[in-house]
């Protein structure tokens, strides 16, 4: 009895730590209470489960038709093929969805320097700390995989079972569930390993930059997966995966696992299933090893001097450009510089930019894949090509504006209240310069890179002019809706009102990107009409600029009330159960 009690007392820090590490996955400066934490968790789950439901609605009716045809023609092979296709889609979905959850909790996938600093001095065994971290990771993985897999595997089982028997139900259900869970575990563990490896190579700075890229990438893949599902299904004529080139794809391994569990006798399925199981075992073991190693590494780094290394994310060219655009106003230059440096170095601010840009990339890819079927289609100007820089500029600007609402080290914002001179006009000029430089530079470079080789320098120059003017116009409008210094106000949950205003964002994209690109296509080759178009856009830019200038004169800078400066403690590494609060 006493031994059991002692063991429970000894295990208590493990539970508290595991809970603290689990909270870290969803914690940020914008999440300051348990309620918001739960909302964040539910929001992320809803975001990844929704495509699963959408997927079911698309896939299963098609399967029913195939099953009916197979029954009528006495060709059971049709059903096997369809079943394999559905399983491949579900496995891919599980990998992308679990991967998306993992990259959104990227910073917390391995230990951080703060963990080492806080936990190092506490009387805790290293094994306890690492076990707690692994427990938290497992809880996240189980939660994410279960949410993604169960919601699709159960309908899959009931829809695809041929002869309704308990044995078939269990076999189908288990095969699908195991294949999806294993594929999710493989992706999750791989990302933990990548996170740890990147941290070892380039410390936290490189790991942070890598995280934003992966976040964008997974959003693009998930959106493209949803949009391209139907055409993908049509294109998928054969699933005869062999252990050759196609057998190198992880999705094929888990399809093999599914078929093998169903009792398929083809030898290549057994090979693929063995690969799947080996991959899961290797990556899981590597993830455990990386967790141990990363804690050890951070313990070393925490006590070592950080040396004279320069911080990453200097964005020098963009900052120089922003300073030039801000003009002689030193305050505007300061705000533009601060904004771009913060975006380049702070992960919380990079997330909205990465996600929104990913939406733009997904839109572009979808349009290209449905409208352009070969190089011959690119010979003449097309809306699906000309609108690429505009779509990306639109979503990048929307992402940057969303990032401005995410606070960065809110308590440090006193410096703007105490030292800012120049008033709201300077603030607006600074925000505008940072948006113009941040959006303009990459997008204009992309415009030239796309349109010059395809359509020649003359048309590229016209297109560049149109894109430039449209970006200036968009930035002028967006700046008017942002009357304060970026990152200096507490986050207002749901300020974007995506649930009710999503159509405004789509309408905006249509007006900003599709319509001008369509007009450009119609006017291509007609110099006079193109000149008129540029003239109209220039007039619009001047008008909006004039109106914006007048309103920024009248407007006062919005500061949060001093009383609200007392920001609640972040829900990061809340070790209250261990008798301390960080």
């Amino acid at each position: 009895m006493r031994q059991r009690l002692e063991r429970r007392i000894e295990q208590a820090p493990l539970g508290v730590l595991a809970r603290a590490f689990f909270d870290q996955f969803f914690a940020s400066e914008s999440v300051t209470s348990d309620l918001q934490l739960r909302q964040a968790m539910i929001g992320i789950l809803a975001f990844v489960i929704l495509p699963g439901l959408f997927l079911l609605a698309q896939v299963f009716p098609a399967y029913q038709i195939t099953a009916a045809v197979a029954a009528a023609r006495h060709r059971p092979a049709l059903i096997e093929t369809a079943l394999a296709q559905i399983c491949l889609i579900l496995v891919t979905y599980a990998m992308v969805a679990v991967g998306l959850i993992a990259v959104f909790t990227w910073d917390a996938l391995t230990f951080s320097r703060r963990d080492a600093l806080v936990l190092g001095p506490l009387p805790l065994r290293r094994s306890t700390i690492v076990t707690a971290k692994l427990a938290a990771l497992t809880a996240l993985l189980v939660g994410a995989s279960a949410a993604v897999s169960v919601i699709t595997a159960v309908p899959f089982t009931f829809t695809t079972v041929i002869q309704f028997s308990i044995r078939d139900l269990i076999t189908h259900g288990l095969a699908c569930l195991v294949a999806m869970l294993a594929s999710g575990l493989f992706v999750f563990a791989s990302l933990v390993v990548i996170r740890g490896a990147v941290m070892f190579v380039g410390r936290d700075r490189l790991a942070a930059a890598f995280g934003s890229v992966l976040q964008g990438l997974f959003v693009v893949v998930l959106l493209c997966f949803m949009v391209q599902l139907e055409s993908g299904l049509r294109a998928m004529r054969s699933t005869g995966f062999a252990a050759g080139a196609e057998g190198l794809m992880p999705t094929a391994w888990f399809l093999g696992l599914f078929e093998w569990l169903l009792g398929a006798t083809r030898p290549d399925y057994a090979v693929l299933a063995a690969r799947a199981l080996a991959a899961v075992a290797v990556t899981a073991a590597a993830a455990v090893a990386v967790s141990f190693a990363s804690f050890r590494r951070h313990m070393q780094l925490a006590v070592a001097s950080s040396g004279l290394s320069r911080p990453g994310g200097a964005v020098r060219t963009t900052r120089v450009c922003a300073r030039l655009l801000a003009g002689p106003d030193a305050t505007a230059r300061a705000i533009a510089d601060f904004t771009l440096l913060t975006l380049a170095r702070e992960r919380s601010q990079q997330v909205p930019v990465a996600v929104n840009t990913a939406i733009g990339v997904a839109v572009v890819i979808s349009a290209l894949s449905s409208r352009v079927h070969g190089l011959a289609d690119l010979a003449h100007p097309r809306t699906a090509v000309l609108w690429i820089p505009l779509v990306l500029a639109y979503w990048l600007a929307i992402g940057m504006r969303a990032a401005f609402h995410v606070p960065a080290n809110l308590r440090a914002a006193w410096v703007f209240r105490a030292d800012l001179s120049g008033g709201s006009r300077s603030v607006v000029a600074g925000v505008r310069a940072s948006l113009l430089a941040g959006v303009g530079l990459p997008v204009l470079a992309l415009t030239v890179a796309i349109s010059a080789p395809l359509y020649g320098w003359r048309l590229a120059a016209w297109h560049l002019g149109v894109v430039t003017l449209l970006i200036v116009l968009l930035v002028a409008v967006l700046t008017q809706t942002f009357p304060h210094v970026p990152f200096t106000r507490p986050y207002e949950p749901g300020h974007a009102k995506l649930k009710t205003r999503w159509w405004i964002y789509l309408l905006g994209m249509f007006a900003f990107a599709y319509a001008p690109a369509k007009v450009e296509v119609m006017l291509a080759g007609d110099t006079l009409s193109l000149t008129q178009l540029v003239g109209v856009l220039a007039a619009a830019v001047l008008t909006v600029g004039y109106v914006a200038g007048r309103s920024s004169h009248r407007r006062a800078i919005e500061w949060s009330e001093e009383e609200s400066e007392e920001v609640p403690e972040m829900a990061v590494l809340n070790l209250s159960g261990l008798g301390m609060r960080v």
Partner: protein
Amino acid sequence: MLEVSRLTKWYGALIGIQDVSFDVEPGEVLGLLGPNGSGKSTTVKILTGLLRPTSGLVRLDGRNIADDLETYKAHLGYVPEEPHLYTHLTGPEYLRLVGRLRQIPDKRLDRKIDEFLQLLGIYDDRYQTLSAYSKGMRQKILIAAAVLHDPRLVILDEPFSGLDVSAARLLKAFVRALAEQGKVVLFSSHVLEVVEQVCSRVVILKEGRIVGHDSVANLRTMLQLPSLDAVFAALTAEEDVAGRLNGLLATMRA
């Protein structure tokens, strides 16, 4: 001259400060003392324009600062109590941000930043972000940021926090030199020895009200006490320290 007249601040039903009045002449260092919760921070925040008073006035050279807060802030240098900085910026990047916000031309600003960093002994750390700085190094950045624009009024809230002995000695001399150059200096601190060495007059706050306002020497003579520490204890009516100490030890052992 800085004149503070009948300053009162209510936080809802709670009183922050009440009827706080004092003035500071150019060339003078006024110490602001008081136990935790006495209203020092509220007073300092009102004087820096970060907080609006419920009633009362603050005047600089006879002008109400509320009439033109921006111009007032242009003359003000402020070292806050807590070193809240943008830790993703390097030291020079932070100082450049502050200098530009204060409209200092870039060339002059860069020269000043380099010199400040060298004089404060943090030049070698100029490529590190502030997240890697020690508390003392961050404090030095805050001090440099406060005087970067050569302000007429300097408000220092616990400026010695985290500084090593030699840096603290340098800062003490710097504060006195600022006053000698005709600047108005307000110095808020818990370290009574430093206040005694640096300040020409002190204001002692307790529960939002002024309980003592005079030169250190006068206060000592008036209360017939040997040190500022004793004066402070008498005026703020500190609770039985020995009793509380015993309680702390007992709780720790329990």
